[in-house]
């Protein structure tokens, strides 16, 4: 076997760490994400919390792809700022990953296409070997380079060999046969190679008992929440980064007598969700920006006809096709304002995977209680990156169906009108199949019976009836989360997955004696003006952090709450989520010597 060492391996003392950050990069199809998920499993089994992020292109094979895994004794909500180790299957991966490497970091490089050209700082330890060639000659399958690299990586991270073997065995057990044998053989080749080239344990990771957490991505948590919350009908059209919702529910809904339908387009998807809801089933659809555009007519229909439906929007880089696999938070204006006419809707913004589960159940309850469309707005990072979360508490789950009548309740009524005026704007609802519950459900303006009407007095009453529901639902919409010290004069306001990098930026700033606080908004429509006004009133400067160019959340707050002169935008729209140091840096620039601040957005 040929081994090329770029420089001599040095004797190292394993560094004791409380967290470890690893990137695995190569071309799409290299199996980089497999290595990440194997490592995530190892770290979970020794009691660490994990967060993994992916960076892929919109193509099946080829193009740079990488995954980043962060394991920590504490719960983490972002990939952080730096890397301890980098597994690179090509030169490009080193270009991408090396700027983030710690000065004493480790690189494992597949030199099958030639030795590493990139010059790295002297403190960085590089282990390189022809991993693909080795996998090809010894295992007849070059892809197994990923499992070989995993063995080498595990040595560098100081992980026990038996743990690594257990994780690989468990992962391929079900496939068995050649797949299992091939991967187990690849591991052994990797371990032997590590011995040969003298891979040392660079890190000592604290080992504890498995902590019972779940490793889930946001899309899946929404899928689980949907089923547990009584959802039985889902329709969607494949679209990145929302496809995991469709995939999860396609496998799991049928087990509960439900169905996940792949529609011919998003217009069909939302109308299917509406159809199932009309028949009395809790239903949902999920999409991303381009599909959201097509769903807009269905949104107005659900609102006008008062049909409970949940719509998940997983934001990606727009407009148009934009950058399909890339992160952004630029659909906020769309979900809050889209559609012709004035109509009620609710917009909930989960910020982490735990929220994705519980708030999906809330969304189902709100949709049915208030008989209107409810958006769940998340972003690519939250949708597709996996987080360690405490197990979801099933005892907290409630199914509240509002004014959906039982047959007995219906039997006792002298008159049944689908859109009957009431003090709370909510009318009793029947479903087809009930005796005596005939109703006309329509997207035309209608009278209380559901018959088309252009009567002026009726029109005004119906419009007010529908809008009233938003005001009442507001009392049940999720409140913001508050972090930091009450008396800080510098504040952050944000939503979605920015919570991770902002919390760490706050730590960085605190270490520089700059106390900050943070309001994480989780109800985007209606906004809880009270909590925002109180927060904005209490700070000198509020940094509104969001992944879009125009400052959509900042604009919404200025419009609904005010405080325009205190609001500064920190915006990123290059397809990636924020890193903690970058947020801290922008704050320091803005507050530092009065240079005029290039991030000023007000």
């Amino acid at each position, binding site marked *: 076997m040929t081994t090329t060492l770029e420089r001599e391996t040095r004797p190292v003392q394993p560094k004791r760490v409380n967290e470890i950050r690893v990137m695995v990069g190569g071309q799409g199809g290299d199996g980089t994400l497999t290595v990440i998920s194997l490592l995530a499993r190892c770290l979970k089994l020794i009691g660490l919390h994990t967060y993994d992020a992916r960076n892929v292109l919109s193509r099946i094979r080829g193009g740079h792809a990488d995954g980043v895994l962060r394991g920590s004794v504490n719960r983490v909500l972002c990939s952080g700022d730096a890397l301890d180790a980098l597994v690179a299957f090509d030169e490009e991966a080193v270009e991408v990953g090396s700027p983030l490497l710690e000065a004493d970091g480790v690189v494992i490089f597949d030199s099958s296409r030639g030795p590493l050209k990139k010059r790295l700082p002297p403190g960085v330890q590089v282990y390189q070997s022809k991993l693909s060639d080795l996998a090809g000659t010894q295992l007849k399958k070059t892809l197994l380079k990923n499992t070989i690299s995993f063995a080498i990586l595990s040595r560098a991270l100081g992980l026990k060999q038996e743990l690594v073997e257990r994780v690989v065995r468990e992962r391929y057990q079900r496939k068995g046969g050649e797949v299992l044998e091939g991967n187990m053989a690849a591991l052994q080749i990797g371990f032997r190679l590590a011995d040969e080239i003298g891979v040392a344990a660079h890190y000592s990771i604290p080992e504890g008992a498995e902590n019972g*957490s779940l490793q889930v991505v946001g899309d899946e948590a929404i899928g689980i929440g949907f089923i547990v919350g009584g959802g039985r*009908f889902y329709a969607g059209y494949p679209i990145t980064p929302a496809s995991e919702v469709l995939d999860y529910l396609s496998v799991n809904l049928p087990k509960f007598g439900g169905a996940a*339908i792949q529609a011919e387009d998003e*217009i*069909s998807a939302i109308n299917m969700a*509406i*159809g199932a809801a009309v028949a009395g089933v809790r239903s949902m659809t999920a999409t991303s920006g381009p599909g959201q555009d097509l769903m807009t007519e269905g949104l107005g229909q659900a609102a006008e006809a008062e049909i409970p439906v949940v719509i998940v929007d997983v934001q990606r880089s727009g407009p148009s096709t934009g950058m399909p696999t890339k992160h952004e938070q630029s659909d906020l204006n769309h979900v809050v304002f889209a559609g012709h006419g004035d109509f009620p809707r609710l917009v909930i913004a989960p910020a982490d995977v735990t929220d994705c589960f519980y708030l999906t159940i809330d969304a189902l309850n709100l949709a049915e209680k208030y008989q209107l469309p409810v958006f769940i707005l998340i972003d690519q990072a939250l949708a597709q990156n996996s987080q360690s979360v405490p197990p979801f508490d099933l005892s907290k789950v409630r199914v509240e169906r509002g004014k959906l009548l039982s047959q007995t309740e219906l039997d006792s009524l002298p008159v049944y009108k*689908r859109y009957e005026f009431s003090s709370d704007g909510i009318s009793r609802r029947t479903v*087809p199949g009930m005796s005596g519950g005939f109703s006309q459900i*329509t997207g035309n303006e209608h009278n209380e019976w559901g018959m088309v009407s252009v009567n002026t007095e009726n029109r005004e009453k119906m419009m007010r009836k529908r809008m009233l529901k938003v005001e009442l639902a507001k009392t049940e919409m999720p409140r913001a989360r508050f972090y930091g010290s009450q008396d800080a004069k510098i504040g952050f306001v944000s939503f979605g997955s920015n919570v991770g990098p902002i919390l760490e930026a706050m730590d960085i700033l605190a270490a520089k004696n700059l106390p900050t606080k943070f309001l994480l908004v989780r109800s985007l429509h209606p906004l809880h003006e009270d909590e925002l006004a109180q927060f904005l009133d209490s700070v000198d400067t509020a940094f509104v952090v969001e992944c879009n160019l125009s400052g959509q959340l900042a604009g919404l707050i200025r419009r609904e709450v005010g405080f325009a002169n205190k609001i500064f935008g920190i915006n990123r729209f290059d397809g990636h989520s924020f890193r903690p140091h970058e947020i801290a840096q922008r704050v320091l620039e803005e507050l530092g010597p009065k240079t005029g601040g290039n991030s000023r957005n007000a």
Partner: protein
Amino acid sequence: MPETFPVATPIWCPGCGDFGVLAALKKALAELRIPPKDTIIVGGIGCSGHIHNDIQVYGYHSLHGRLLTTATAVKLANPRLTVIAAGGDGDGYAIGGNHFLHALRRNPSIVYLVMNNGTYGLTKGQPSPTAQIGFEGTKEIPFEPVLMALSLRSSTFVARGFSGNQTQLVRLIKEAIEHESQGKGFAFLDVLSPCVTYNDTYAEWRKAVVDLNADPDFDNTNRSKSFQHILETIVSGRIPTGLLYRGEGASFERNVLLPGSEPMALQDISPERNLESYKKLLQKFA
């Protein structure tokens, strides 16, 4: 029993073909003794889409062109319901064309009644995809829905009626509803239903219609022969009517739903009911 909505008086012009469709539909439902409480009519947008207001059953007025996707999901949610989608030719063959194609492909057990008059009456007479060449200056070759339906190998029921022939229309609607109720799939019935105001084709169509079921040489169980027969009839300037094709195939709901499961709409979804299975969902991620 509570008092429910007062059945509306149709909005159609005197003499509109849709009166014939409404009369035939009422008669068919009554003769088949379909319980009104288990019936839902999903209407489209346009004159014909008002039909659901005119019968005492459950009614849903869908978005323009979206009645089939809505009706498909209603059926999946509760296969015990009799689901009738009813709309116009602009609704179904223009703006809803994609959904028509996919309904034919999926074969859900729903009835689809298209009141076909070749024009957009509510917007004052623009040509629809089925408008005859020359109507309002159109030069486009008319869309032929029954040929399209036949061309999808998954279609199981393709028919055409004429609102001027009640006896035939009642028979076809009854056969369509039976196909639906027996879970055999998508019962597509295009009904020639003239617009007396903007495209009065009564006299023309009365002369041109031919009941293929009266032709002993016509075999409506053979897809390719039926296709050829219909195409030749159209090319010769006549309009084929009758039950044009009847085949067999698994319905969408049968393909999608767990056999023997309680309809989704009737399930008890309280969390306690499924706690053990929910726990298993979480274990996957532990």
